[in-house]
């Protein structure tokens, strides 16, 4: 927060474009608010530089995603319009959280919490509904697509999506960060600060992808497990908010009143966002069950012994996964296989993409 820290970190004309610029940008913007920058000759340059990171965060993925959509459209393949909408909204959330006004506000604890909610919860939820990995698998040239597939099927990807791993990654680091002096000392270590924020964003994306991502997720747990995972993460946030509130007077996180306001925002804000996550998760489950039910009814209407061979699907509908499964599996049908570079390339994607969810879907639940 102190002006000297901000300027010294930004000294020279090379403005860091990675996450390390958060605290610096924050202090720069805070300085602007205090009117101290007027005397600084490079003031307007650094002020504009504050917008570079949010602009990149917004535009780069937007262009990439748009290119993918255009390629699909050129092939005549269908891509639900809600996905680009979710992608844009998610990026807008992230960019807003990184914009100079938001980073300036992050100097106070409520602003920091708002930034945290936008970046690690709202943006990931929206982005996960845009199925960017599916889009990439359907539109990338063969070589990078093979690389992406290899990454998705790597052992580490599968172990990262284990519910316990997700829960620990998403919740555990928050406690020492906000309940010890770590939070204050981060401001003196820009690299560490960037690493911590990077981790939180990555963990938020992981949570959203495992819980409600439209993309197929390797080893995605069944719906009941996902509900429990969500509950653990939500409770983790809420308990933390209460502990922060109770310890506000220690002054570790700044002005006690601001800390209490931030803790309330964390408690209620994360409750709203996690409530949305449950709604999306269960709505996916409900839709998947509906598809299975219609299928059953059609079979039953056709008459005969279908009842015996019916799969026990509806109870454990794979949620978002099944939508992606259907979608990815639909690829070869959308466009003739020859259109995809490498001919049979489309098939492996579909076959590889779906089992993670389709196999999990046949598990029964009571």
């Amino acid at each position, binding site marked *: 927060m102190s002006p000297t820290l901000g300027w010294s970190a930004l000294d020279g004309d090379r403005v860091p474009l990675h996450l390390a610029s958060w605290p610096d940008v924050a202090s720069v913007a805070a300085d602007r608010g205090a009117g101290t920058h007027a005397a600084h000759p490079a003031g307007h340059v650094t002020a504009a530089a504050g917008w570079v990171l949010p602009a990149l965060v917004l535009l780069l993925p937007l262009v990439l995603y748009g290119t993918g959509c255009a390629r699909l459209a050129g092939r005549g393949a269908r891509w639900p319009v809600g996905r680009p909408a979710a992608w844009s909204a998610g990026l807008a959330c992230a960019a807003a959280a990184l914009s100079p006004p938001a980073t300036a506000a992050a100097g106070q604890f409520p602003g920091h919490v708002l930034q945290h909610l936008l970046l690690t919860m709202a943006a990931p939820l929206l982005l996960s509904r845009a199925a960017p990995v599916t889009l990439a698998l359907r539109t990338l040239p063969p070589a990078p697509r093979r690389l992406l597939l290899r990454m998705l099927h790597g052992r580490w990807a599968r172990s990262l999506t284990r519910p316990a791993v997700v829960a620990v990654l998403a919740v555990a680091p928050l406690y020492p960060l906000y309940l010890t002096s770590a939070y204050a000392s981060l401001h003196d270590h820009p690299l560490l600060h960037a690493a911590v924020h990077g981790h939180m964003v990555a963990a938020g994306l992981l949570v959203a992808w495992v819980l409600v991502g439209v993309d197929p997720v390797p080893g995605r747990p069944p719906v009941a497990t996902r*509900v429990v995972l*969500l509950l653990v993460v939500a409770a983790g*946030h809420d*308990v933390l908010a209460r502990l922060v*509130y109770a310890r506000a007077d220690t002054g570790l996180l700044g002005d006690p009143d601001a800390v209490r306001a931030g803790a309330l925002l964390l408690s209620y804000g994360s409750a709203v966002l996690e409530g949305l996550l449950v709604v999306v998760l269960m709505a996916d489950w409900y839709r998947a069950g509906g598809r299975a039910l219609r299928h059953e009814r059609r079979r*039953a209407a056709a008459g005969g012994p279908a*009842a015996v061979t019916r799969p026990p699907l509806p*109870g454990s509908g794979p949620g978002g996964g099944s939508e992606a499964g259907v979608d990815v599996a639909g690829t070869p049908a959308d466009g003739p296989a020859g259109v995809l570079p490498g001919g049979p390339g489309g098939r492996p994607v579909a076959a590889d993409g779906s089992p993670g969810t389709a196999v999990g879907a046949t598990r029964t639940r*009571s």
Partner: protein
Amino acid sequence: MSGRSLLAGLLVGVGVAAFVDEVVFHQLLHWHHFYDRSTTDAGLVSDGLLHAGGWTATVVGLFLFADLQRRHATVPLRVWAGGLLGAGGFQLYDGLVQHKLLRLHQVRYGVDLLPYDLAWNAPGAVAVLVGLLLLRRARGRGAGGSAGGGSPVGGATATGRLPS
């Protein structure tokens, strides 16, 4: 689907009780406090879990119920039993464990607590008792109706009625 009916009722019951607690007593009346100085850390953990769980339970319970309805597989008596057990159980847990054992916060401040505590816990206890009675009655009926039809979840009970 009788197990599912009970579960849906339980979840919605817990969720409704948590919702009423939050909206009426925390937000509207301001009787309850987010935190008071006697609150223990265990109390905070417990309250955080309930707060997060209330949302989740409501949403999951409603979706389960909607699923039962579209399959024409709802067992209403069990839904009611579950609802009462869930809401009453929540009320008792909140009133006895959270307010008293964990000293999270009291029903109201600056008053003689006894009548408030009675008014808080008695309805909870009654709801649990009625829920148990309903459950017993549902079990009696279930034994006559569909013996063991509940366990294969996506199976016999729901689909048996579909063709008609």
